């Protein structure tokens, strides 16, 4: 090998599976020569298409958007043109505006969104430290709000810890897998691999999903329930387990409370009653419950198919309760598996980028925690829980009193103008906020509404730590030298803090930040860089810095839960239907799903050559053959899909894998942007939007040529807005 050619191992930037990848780079040419997966704790040497080919955006091929390379500000007020400025000028501009707003409207007029994507845990820590110590507010949140917040809230309230109780490799040794609202083959192929292997080892797989997903296809029992009826199903399963005496009495007695209240609710939910709601048979529900209760190695895996509902938290609570009722916690290969979507959404929760907790899940309302962080950061801190980012419209356009409004929004590594529900309402809110800062690696839709744009380094251009979905801290490493006038996220935030007069330390590297994190978070204290170097992956809790503490494979050992008294609480709620149901004008239900080769808002994967070759704009709407026949649709033809909130064009994918009356759209598309249609109704306690259910209608477009022209016009406009000045081919049938 030439001297300048180096091999560097890092963690994939795309999902919570946390696969280990080996880069071969020519450091002199600053060029990637090869990427392939290597052996890691979760991936066993495998990776999916995003791991293999998803690094291409580092080459900035400018397909959908373009990398940001210079800081820019709107010097002459809102809506004035963006001007490229020096970092000093940009930092001072942001700091001055934040300061002015803080002085005029108080610290709680500010909200920061941390990034669960490229920046990593150290940047996440700095973002929340900025909100709390520099601004003085707990208004700090991140995109877990729009995906797995319900899992965190629901699990915290029952078993005291909002993460996967087991580790990814354990899944393959489970005997029963109850997979509900989770499409692993699409969201985490490397977790799907464990499910496939479990099946080969003889596991019985129950899959509750309204579609025939790949997991449903290989399941022993597919419960093809109607969308939005999860609570009815899990309550009825609990009913069967209790009424047929399939309980683990010892476990329930020794480790749980709340049984009578729990039974009082599920008593009503007989399999017969729920069968009717869910569109299943009572026998199938009984079978699923009996199977689930038949083993001490049963796991429940779930994803956004249960959390993105207004009853998300309730479903999570009941899932945790099912595991408690059957004694499925505290030993190898059992428990609950809320598998986190984005690469570092677990980490961003770990770092306290949530309105209610400091790093390490220490409550902001706990005076002892408050005192500890006040001492560490040298300021007085607020003990009120902050507001969640999905409430931006509520605290901006729907708030009459300016004194109660959000006036400054600091967005790092997120694109709410693509990812949040009801985009029209969101855009209106962004324009209404006095000062919006967008700190990102790409031009994105939110940048168009920002008063300052701060360009940061991406995954592959900086060091740090991510947390995989199963609580595993793993290193990410710098592979390429960043090009342009860009800085790591943590450094940008530290500079703003100092410009505002806060004595933020001059960290020299991410390890110095990490040391501050672990010293303040008992659960993470043992996970030093040194140990991460040696062990590659350390699952929290890891309490001790000594070499013998290698972390924790599964939580709640021997049934001792992470609740204050160590006892789990059985909880659930009665079923209620989703907020917006089908009507005469909007007769079909819309559920948002995802595309395996694309990630999040698609700024990254949309700029990877081969991933966009595989799937491109304007995306798809999956529709049943019956519905397609009624509308006279052909496979792959363009259709118009509308809800009360908006209307977009996309392609019809006619498939027998979905049932009549329900359609499914992947949320990654910019032309066929399904969040123009979704509803911003929220789960009352987790504030997660009901992405999985709203009413829509589909129309045939008789003039397909004109429709394709319209799609390409929209795409052209998007590329222009994203400052791509190279002519690119359009899309076609």
């Amino acid at each position, binding site marked *: 090998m030439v001297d300048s050619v180096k091999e560097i191992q890092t963690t994939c930037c795309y999902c919570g599976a946390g696969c280990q990848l080996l880069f071969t780079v020519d450091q002199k040419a600053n060029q990637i020569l090869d990427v392939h997966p290597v052996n890691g704790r979760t991936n066993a040497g495998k990776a*999916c298409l995003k791991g*293999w080919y998803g690094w291409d955006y580092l080459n900035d091929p400018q397909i959908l958007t373009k990398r940001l390379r210079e800081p820019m500000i709107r010097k002459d007020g809102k809506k004035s043109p963006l001007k490229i400025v020096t970092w000093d000028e940009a930092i001072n501009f942001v700091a001055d505006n934040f300061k002015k707003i803080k002085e005029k409207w108080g610290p709680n007029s500010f909200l920061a969104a941390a990034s669960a994507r490229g920046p990593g845990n150290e940047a996440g820590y700095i973002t929340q430290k900025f909100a709390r110590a520099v601004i003085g507010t707990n208004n700090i949140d991140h995109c877990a709000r729009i995906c797995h917040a319900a899992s965190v809230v629901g699990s915290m309230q029952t078993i005291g810890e909002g993460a996967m109780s087991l580790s990814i490799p354990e899944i393959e040794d489970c005997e029963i897998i109850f997979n509900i609202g989770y499409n692993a083959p*699409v969201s985490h192929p490397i977790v*799907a*691999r464990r499910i*496939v292997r479990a099946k080969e080892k003889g596991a019985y797989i129950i899959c509750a999903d309204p579609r025939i997903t790949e997991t449903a296809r290989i399941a022993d029992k597919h419960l093809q329930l109607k969308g939005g009826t999860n609570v009815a199903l899990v309550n009825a399963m609990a009913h069967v387990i209790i009424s047929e005496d399939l309980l683990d009495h010892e476990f329930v007695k020794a480790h749980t409370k709340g049984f009578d209240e729990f039974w009082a609710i599920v008593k009503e939910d007989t399999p017969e009653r729920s069968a009717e709601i869910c569109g299943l048979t009572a026998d199938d529900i009984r079978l699923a419950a009996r199977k689930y209760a038949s083993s001490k190695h049963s796991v429940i895996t779930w994803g956004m198919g249960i959390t993105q509902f207004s009853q998300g938290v309730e479903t999570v609570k009941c899932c945790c309760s099912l595991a408690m009722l059957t004694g499925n916690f505290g030993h190898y290969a059992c428990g609950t598996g809320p598998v986190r979507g984005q690469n570092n959404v677990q980490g961003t929760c770990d770092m306290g980028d949530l309105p209610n907790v400091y790093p390490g899940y220490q409550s902001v309302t706990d005076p002892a925690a408050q005192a500890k962080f006040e001492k560490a950061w040298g300021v007085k801190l607020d003990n009120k829980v902050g507001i969640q980012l999905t409430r931006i419209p509520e605290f901006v356009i729907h708030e009459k009193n300016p004194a109660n409004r959000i006036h400054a929004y600091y967005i790092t590594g997120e694109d709410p103008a693509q990812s949040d529900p009801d985009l029209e309402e969101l855009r209106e809110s962004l324009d209404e906020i006095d000062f919006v800062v967008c700190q990102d690696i790409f031009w994105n839709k939110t940048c168009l509404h920002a008063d300052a744009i701060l360009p940061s380094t991406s995954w592959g251009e900086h060091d740090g730590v991510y947390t995989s979905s199963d609580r595993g801290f793993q290193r990410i490493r710098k592979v390429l030298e960043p090009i342009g006038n860009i800085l790591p996220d943590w450094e940008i935030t530290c500079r703003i803090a100092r410009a505002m007069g806060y004595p933020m330390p001059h960290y020299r590297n991410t390890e110095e930040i990490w040391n501050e994190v672990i010293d303040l978070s008992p659960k993470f204290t043992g996970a030093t860089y040194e140990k991460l170097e040696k062990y590659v992956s350390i699952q929290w809790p890891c309490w001790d810095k000594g070499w013998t503490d290698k972390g924790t494979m599964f939580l709640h050992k021997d049934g001792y839960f992470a609740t204050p008294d160590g006892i789990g609480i059985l909880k659930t709620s009665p079923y209620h239907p989703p907020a917006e149901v089908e009507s005469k004008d909007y007769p079909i239900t819309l559920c948002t799903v995802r595309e395996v080769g694309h990630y999040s808002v698609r700024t990254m994967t949309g700029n990877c050559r*081969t991933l966009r070759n*595989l799937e491109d704009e304007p995306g798809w709407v999956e529709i049943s053959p019956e519905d397609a026949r009624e509308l006279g649709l052909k496979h792959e033809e363009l259709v118009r899909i509308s809800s009360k909130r908006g209307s977009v064009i996309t392609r019809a994918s006619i498939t*027998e894998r979905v049932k009549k009356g329900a359609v499914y759209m992947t949320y990654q598309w910019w032309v066929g942007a399904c969040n123009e249609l979704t509803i911003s109704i929220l789960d009352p306690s987790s504030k997660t939007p009901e992405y999985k259910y709203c009413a829509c209608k589909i129309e045939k477009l008789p003039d397909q040529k004109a429709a394709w022209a319209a799609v390409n016009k929209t795409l052209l406009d998007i590329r222009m807005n994203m400052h791509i000045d190279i002519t690119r081919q359009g899309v076609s049938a």
Partner: protein
Amino acid sequence: MNSFVIANSSRCIGCRTCMIACVVAHEGKRIFEIDPDGYAFNPRLFMVKTVKLSAPVQCRHCENAACKQACTSGAINIGNGTVSINSKRCIGCKNCVVACPFGAIEIIKTVEINKDGYPRKIASKCDLCQGVAESPQCIRVCPTEALSLVTEDILIGNLRQKRIDSLNAWL
């Protein structure tokens, strides 16, 4: 005997990593450096999904290949353990496409432009990565190990086992 790649549908998760691997193998690593519109994306295996099954389908490398017999321009050869298409000789007549019982051949648009100004279109199918990589790259990248290469030895080994099993069935 010719070898072939086959997919196990109960392991396949429909992710199509194999399809990209196929294109990257045949285009070479330059694919990540050139103009994104400067190459053609033509995987030589095809993901098929029905209600019950998901799996990529590709050339079986038949011993008495119907495609070879149907080819009007002598572009299809058998040798070196594979059935291969000589793209230079292919005139795009589509006889092979019609003849193939597996649907494993398709006509693709290349980035080459004919003298008449139209893009050159030719038949394309799996070549087991001969001449482009050490082994079929679809097999290498599959996250669930759903794909495997069936060689003569493996096939014969399987036959032997099946025969033993059928005898044992009498016990």
